[in-house]
Each structure stands twice: as C-alpha cells, then as structure tokens.
C-alpha cells in the first residue's frame, strides 16, 4: 500500500506525458485525479494504521546498493503519517486549484506530481540515503516550477532557492557520511545510524548534529539561513507557494525531529541554542511580516515566525513540546495553504499583491474577505483554530525548560496579532474600489470565489477548525511514537 502511495503520482506524471499539451483542462483533471487517488490511498493508510503501537508500520525494505549498505526502506510511524496526510492533501488542492496555469501546463502538472512523489518518499524513508536522495530530488521540480512559471524576479528566486538548499544539503551529506562511517555493518538504515551515533564521543556528536542542523535549518528555515524564503515564496506561482510553505518547510522540521532521534545526546546538549534560534526566528519573522505591504511577502515572513514556534517545541525535547511542534506543523500547513490559496486566487483577479489594492474587498467579494480574515485569525492562534492547540502545547512544553524567557515568545505573539489585524483591517475597510481602479485601471469589481474554489478553501477551513475543536484524534495518532522518542531522550 505504501508503495502504491509513492508510485501513484509518478504513474500520473507518466500518464500526462501521453496527453497532448494543448488540452490544458484534460491535463489538469488527470493530474487532479492522480493526486486525489494518492490522497485516498493515504487515507486508507490512516485507517490501517495502529496508533497504539510505537513501532514502524508498513515497513518494507529491499537492498538498493548492497555494496554501500543502502536500502530502499520505507515505513511510517506516528511522526511521519500526519506529514504524509498533509502532503497529499495540499498537493491535491494545489493541483486542483491551478486553473490559472494555461501555458506550459504539461510540464507544470508533471513536475508537481514528481514533486509529490519525492515529498512522500522523504516522509516515509527509513534509510538516510533514500531520504537524502529524495530530499535533493524535490529541488529539481521546484527549480523549474519557480524558474519557468514564477513572477518578475523568478530566475533570481529559483537560483537563490536552489543554491541555499544545496549549500545546506552539503553539510547534511557530510554529517550523514560521518555517521555512516561509524554505523555498525556500514549501513544507511536509520536504526543502524542511530546506533552508530551513540558510540561517537560527545563533541563529535554535536558536530554531526550541527551539520544536520544547517541542512535542515535552511529548509525550515531558521533565522540566519532564511534568505531564500521570502523571495521564493513571493515569486513562485501560488499553488507552488502552497506546497513550499505547507509541506517543504515541514520537511526541515521533520528532518530535525529525526536528527534528534538519531543523536539524542547532541540534541540535549544543543537545546538552549536551539531555543535561542527559535526565539530569534519567531521575533524576526513577526517583526518583518509587520513591515510588508505585499500580502504574499507578509505571509512568507509569518511562516518564518510560525516555524520558530515549531523549532521551540522541538528544542523543548519533552512530550508536550514535541507534540505541540507536530501539531503546529499540521496547523501551519493548513493555515498557510489556505492563505496562499486565497492570495493566489486574488492575484489572478487583481494582478496585484499589494495590501492597498484589496481595500474594501468585503464589499465586492465577501467570501474572500471572510475567509482571509478567518485564516489570518487562525494564524494568530485564536482558540477554536488548530494553531491555538499547538501554541499552548509548545508554550507549556518550553515553559518546563526555560520559564520566564518565554516572555520573548509572547512578544512574538503580540506582534503577530498586530500584523494579522492590520491585514484584516485593510481588507475590510478603507476607501472603496473607485480609488483602486484609479491606480490599476482594472475592473471595478473582484469576482467572488467560484464554487470549486470555495470547496477547496472550505476543506482547509474545516480542517483547521476540526483540529482546533477536537484535537485528540491527531494527538492520539502521534502520542505513542513521541513517547518512544522522549523516553530515548530521557536516558
């Protein structure tokens, strides 16, 4: 079943190659079908998954390159399954909502499906070599997606994105090779690498962990390494932005959790520094988000801030913190997905991303305005949304370690309320459309959401509220696996 999940998008991409390039709608429908089948497949996995067992489930392995000890090992546990679900859901929505793509549609949809496959392999790999290969594989479709179909500065954004990530992955590779060197039986399997890592002296462990941290921190992003993110998010076509912030950033955080799993002693030694970086990201992202006038850039910077919350939860290294970090990853995936979806649809209609262009949106497009307000408030972490459940857990988890230092995290919360409300205020008030038409000369009305777009946005909104009101199923899914991880850390 897991293999079917990984192969379905690739199969879809192959199918797309047979369709003539001018039949754009057929291409989109086929791609949506493939992504939808993948989503169904992941839901079936969820049904078959046994949350009470902390072991790796659906495990399958076959030798890949026996001479270097690489295996094609796949498996899911309570940490990776939520990520797989999130990835399949967002990929499906991103593909289904790409109605604006008319030129180069064949390449676009094939690349998206290849990207989905690579993402799913990253989340289900049980072997570091496979993980690394899939990690690099995500870059190729993304580079072309941004470079071919992005905004005005797309070349720069794509190059910047790939260079940053490649630079980070080199450190990742070195760290992995160091671990491989000491792993018993020279194997890349995650369990073996962890066993090998435990034998290293503490200083080397910290060095290896630092390498992993740089690699994952670029993707996540952690503050001094975030340079690629604002540009890439702003320039990428909106469905790709959904995937970038919804799933790609989570890869970094997911990898970091795995890294803590592999090198618990080093993670414990680095704990305070991680928290410092987390607080820096949190405040840096929030403050810069406050300064943006471009709505997409604002959401991009707020992503940095939200991933700071995730890092803070991971840094706490206790059950509450990790569980909060995982919840925040899911919550942010849904919220950022919804926001980028809405902004993308708005951009299709207005050809402007400036906040000022959306003044009095509620007069002509009330559903847009209501959903944007909803998504921004959910991003702030109001109770009832998924972000609240996550933030409470992270704060409580981190409180156990750092106490009063969390005042800085509260500062970030305060600023996040300020920028979200400023955006809502812009959407809901101000001079009417007459002024805007004077600037852009566009049509005087923005069409409201179509039914299919409404359904897509509604699906995400229901997910956000569902997790916010009734979080226990999600928490139950991860709790056993996280308990195992925490028990390792306690040693």
């Amino acid at each position, binding site marked *: 079943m897991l293999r079917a999940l990984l192969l379905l998008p690739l199969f879809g991409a192959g199918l797309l190659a047979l369709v003539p390039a001018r039949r754009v709608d057929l291409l989109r429908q086929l791609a949506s079908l493939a992504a939808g089948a993948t989503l169904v497949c992941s839901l079936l996995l969820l049904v078959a998954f046994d949350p009470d067992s902390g072991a790796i489930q659906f495990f399958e392995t076959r030798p890949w390159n026996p001479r270097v000890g690489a295996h094609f090992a796949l498996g899911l546990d309570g940490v990776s399954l939520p990520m797989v679900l999130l990835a399949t859901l967002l990929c499906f929505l991103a593909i289904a909502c790409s109605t604006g793509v008319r030129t180069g549609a064949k390449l676009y949809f094939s690349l998206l499906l290849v990207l989905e496959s690579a993402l799913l392999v990253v989340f289900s790999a049980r072997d570091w070599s496979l993980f690394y290969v899939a990690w690099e594989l995500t870059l190729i479709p993304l580079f072309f997606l941004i470079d071919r179909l992005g905004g005005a500065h797309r070349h720069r954004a794509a190059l910047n994105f790939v260079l940053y990530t490649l630079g980070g992955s*080199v450190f990742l590779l070195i760290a992995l090779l160091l671990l491989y060197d000491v792993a018993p039986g020279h194997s890349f399997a995650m369990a073996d690498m962890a066993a090998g890592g435990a034998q290293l002296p503490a200083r080397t462990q910290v060095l290896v962990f630092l390498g992993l941290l740089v690699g994952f921190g670029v993707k996540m992003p952690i503050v001094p390494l975030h340079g690629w993110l604002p540009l890439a998010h702003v320039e990428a076509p909106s469905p790709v932005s959904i995937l970038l912030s919804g799933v790609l950033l989570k890869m970094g955080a997911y990898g970091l959790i795995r890294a803590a799993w592999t090198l618990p002693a080093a993670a414990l030694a680095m704990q305070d520094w991680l928290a410092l970086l987390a607080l820096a990201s949190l405040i840096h992202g929030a403050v810069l988000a406050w300064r943006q006038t471009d709505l997409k850039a604002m959401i991009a910077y707020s992503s940095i801030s939200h991933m700071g919350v995730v890092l803070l939860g991971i840094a706490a290294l206790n059950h509450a913190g990790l569980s909060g970090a995982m919840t925040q990853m899911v919550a942010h995936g849904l919220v950022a997905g919804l926001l980028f979806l809405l902004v993308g649809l708005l951009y299709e209609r207005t050809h402007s991303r400036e906040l000022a262009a959306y003044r009095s949106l509620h007069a002509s497009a009330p559903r847009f305005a209501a959903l944007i307000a909803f998504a921004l*408030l959910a991003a702030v972490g109001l109770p009832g949304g998924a972000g609240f459940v996550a933030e409470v857990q992270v*704060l*409580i988890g981190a409180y156990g370690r750092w106490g009063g230092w969390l005042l800085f995290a509260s500062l970030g919360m305060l600023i996040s309320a300020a920028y979200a409300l400023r955006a809502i205020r812009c959407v809901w008030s101000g001079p009417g459309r007459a002024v805007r038409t004077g600037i852009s000369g566009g049509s005087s009305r923005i069409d409201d959401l179509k039914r299919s777009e409404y359904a897509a946005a509604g699906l995400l909104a229901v997910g956000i509220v569902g997790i916010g009101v009734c979080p226990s199923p999600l928490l139950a899914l991860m709790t056993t696996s996280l308990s195992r991880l925490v028990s390792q850390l306690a040693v």
Partner: protein
Amino acid sequence: MNDWDAFSAALAAALRLVWLVPVLPLFAAVLIALLLLAARGCGDSGERLSAALASGTLLGALVVLAVVDLAALLGVAPGHLVAADWLRIGRVPVRVSFALDAYSLPAATLIALVAWITVRFSTRYLHREAGFSRFFLGLALFAGGMLLIALSGNAVMTFVGWELAGFSSWLLVGYAWERPAATASAQFVFVTNRVGDAGFLLGIGLAVWSAGTLEWAWLAGDGTMATVTARLLAAGFVLAALVKSAQLPFTPWITRALEGPTPSSAIFYGSLMVHAGVYLLCRMQDLLLMVPDLLLVIALIGLSTAFYAALCASVQSDVKSALIYPTLAQVGLMLVFCGLGLFWIAALHAGLHAAWRVVQFLLAPAWLNLARRPARPVPRWLAGRRWLYTAALQRLWIENLVYSLLIRPTLALGRDLQAFDAQFIDPLIGTPVDDSHPSRSVVAGGLPHRPGLAGWALTAVARRLEDVEGQLLMSGDGALERVLRRTAGYAGTVEALLEQPRYLMLMVMATFAVIL
C-alpha cells in the same frame, strides 16, 4: 418523600446539561456566520432570523441556568463538574470542566440575563442597520465567551472564553468598517488585550509545571508551593485580569473601545467584560491569599485607577466617556476589595454594579430626552488648577506614552532588522544576479555583483594567483608559456564551471578540510 427524591434525581441529571449554557450562544453565532456566508443574512427576514437565533439561544441558556441554580440552592449540585476530556498535554489532562459555586452561578445568571436584555434592546436599536446580522454574531460570540469565563472550571477553558470575548469585542468595536477610526480603535483594543493574553498563557504554562493541574479549584495546591512560584504563577493571571478590567497602565483601550454601537458598549465595557478581571481574581483567591505582596500591588493599582478615573470623569463632555470613567473608578474600588482579601464583597459589588451600569448605558442615547437639567460644569477645585485640568483632559498622556514606549520601538526594530537583512546577511551570503540587470553580471572577473564574503575572498585569491602566474610567465621561455597557457585554458574552463554553483562549493571544500 418519594416524589422529592425523584425530583432531585431529575435535577442532578439536568446538571449534566450545563455545557449547553456556553455552547448555545456559540451555536447561534456559528449559524449566523453561516447565514452571512450564504448571503442570506440580509434584508428584513434575515434580520428577524438572526435576532431570533441570538435571543432564543440566550433565553435557552438562561432557562438551563435557572435549573442549575435551583439544583445548587437545593444542594444537589457538586461544586466542580467534569464533563469530558479535551486533550492531554504531557501528563496533565485538559478537561471540559465547570465550576458551579457561589461565585460562578450568580455571575453566569447575571451575564445571561444582561446579554438577553441587550439582545432584545438592540433588535430595535439597530433595525435596518447595514451590519445587523454581524452585530448579532458578535453579541452571541461574546455572550458565549463570557458564560464560558464564568462557568469554566479550569484555566484553559477560561482562556478560550477570554479570547472569544476579546475577539468579539474587536468585531464590535470595528462594527463600522468603513470608518478608519473605528478599525484603528479595534486593532488597538485587540492588541492591548493580547498583552493580557500573553500573561494568561504564561500562567497556564507555569500552572502545568508547578501545580500539575489546570483546574482552578486545585490551583493553590496543598500549601506546599514555594512562594516564588506562587507569585510568578499568580502574576501572569493578575496581568491578564488588569488588562481585561482596564486598570491603570492599560486604561486607554477602554475609551478607544467606545467606538462601537451603544448596546455593545453597554454590555462589554459598561457592564460585563470590564468585570471579567475582578471575577478572575475572585476565582483564584486561594492562590492570591498565598502571596500578600501581590495583593498589595493589586490594591494599589485599583486605588490609583479609581483616583485617575475620578479625575478624568469630571472633565468628560460626551455621555459615553462620562459613564465609562466612573465605571472604571468603581472597578478600581473592587480591586481594592480584592487586594484587602474581601473577595466576596468585590464579587457582590461587581454584580450590583453590572446590573446598574447596563441600564445607564442603554439609556445613554436618550440622555437628552431624559435629562431635566443641563450637565454639571467642571468642579471648581479642578477648574482653578490649570495643569491638573489639562492633565485630566489629556487623560494623563497614557496613550501617547504607550505609543512612544511600545509601538515606536517595535517599528524601529522592524526597520533595523530589515536593514540588517539587506546590509549584513545578503552581502555575507551573497545574492545571485538580478534579472533586471543582466549586463551587470559580466563585471571584471566574471563574478556576479554583490558576490558575498566568500565571493570576494575567491576574487582576491584569484587576483593574487594571477599576479604569481604573470611573474612565472615573464621569466619562462616560450614552451613553458604554451604549456601554461593551455593549462590555464583548462583551468579557466574548470573555473567557469565551478563558478556556476560558485562560492557555496568553495565553502563545501573548506568544510571538508576542517572536518576531515
């Protein structure tokens, strides 16, 4: 006798329905929101529907509350009722629990009653206003949130109500979306309230680690908690209470909040929300009694707010401001009672005061009709002292102080961080070629402009090597020169290839050298 037993058993069974009290108004809010989204909430019929939804559910909540009150009076109600588990944080469960005691039940009944009356009043007051349904959405949300604050048995549930009240207050202050002043005020109010929320969240975090529970009833522990911990724990909640009750450093938000329609001002700031802080203090009185110094601080803040509000009240010229400052003064007095440890007097005062103020605020729009004589002039003792008069008129410049102490530094920080990004991080790591100026990429050395620290280092090394190379060529004969030139050609190709992933590869090699 048998009848009596059956009756009390029925009452005890009805107690299980207490969760309906906050849920009913919230349900109405959700329904109204759905109606609005489906664009059915407009027009006279939509108006009637949303008003009926709000007032019907509130009446329902009131009836349920009456039954619970009766059960409590007859002694069948437990003081603390656990309805369900919500989620589990580490080993601490977060429950859906309700406190049914002498503080919560009267407060909840009063809240439901006042909210119901206000809804009935606003049905006429806002008839055929553009945002009629939106107003009732906010009102229903607010009623649900306040009922949750009053009834909830643990800190997280109270916080949910706390946020709902804050959010709906933001919704109603910004009721007139078109006016920039209203939306600016709404934002100011919400952000100020977030300060208190941050305190509340810190309190929750500390409660999990130091008290091991989130239920109000057991928060004080068994008296073994260290004073320092208790002080920290209480301080977070007290901060939240001070903000919600608009006590001294935080007073400006409440005057800005009067921007909303009159019925919402009545129910929010005149009567209910402003007392939420006092109620929270009463709820955690066991904990507060363990830290007398904090009680002293509360009393002092209450006293100074009372004086400050009394001073400002005497110079106000519009009816809503003239009502809000005496309200603040009374709330200040309640805090003084809390600070003296007389929590039951504070609660009693709050209840009576809430009932009285809601009448005053609802009558405020008709003040010109009702008043028989002109408003009193500024008292003579104040009019004579010009500096005091100015200070009162300017409300002691608190708002300006907040602006220059908090908002301006944050703006400046934002500017600095962006400059830091552009001036320091980008030059250090380098930025790739700008699409808009492709010609600038072919500057000397073939490196793109702004190549970053690593790029500059590479250029410098290349220049030095070139010098050495030049000297070698000068001294050598023709054959060597040819060979060298050919090698240089290869090296040039290799270098050109290397330049594609550029300095990052260089960093990689440097790292290889360091680690291996």
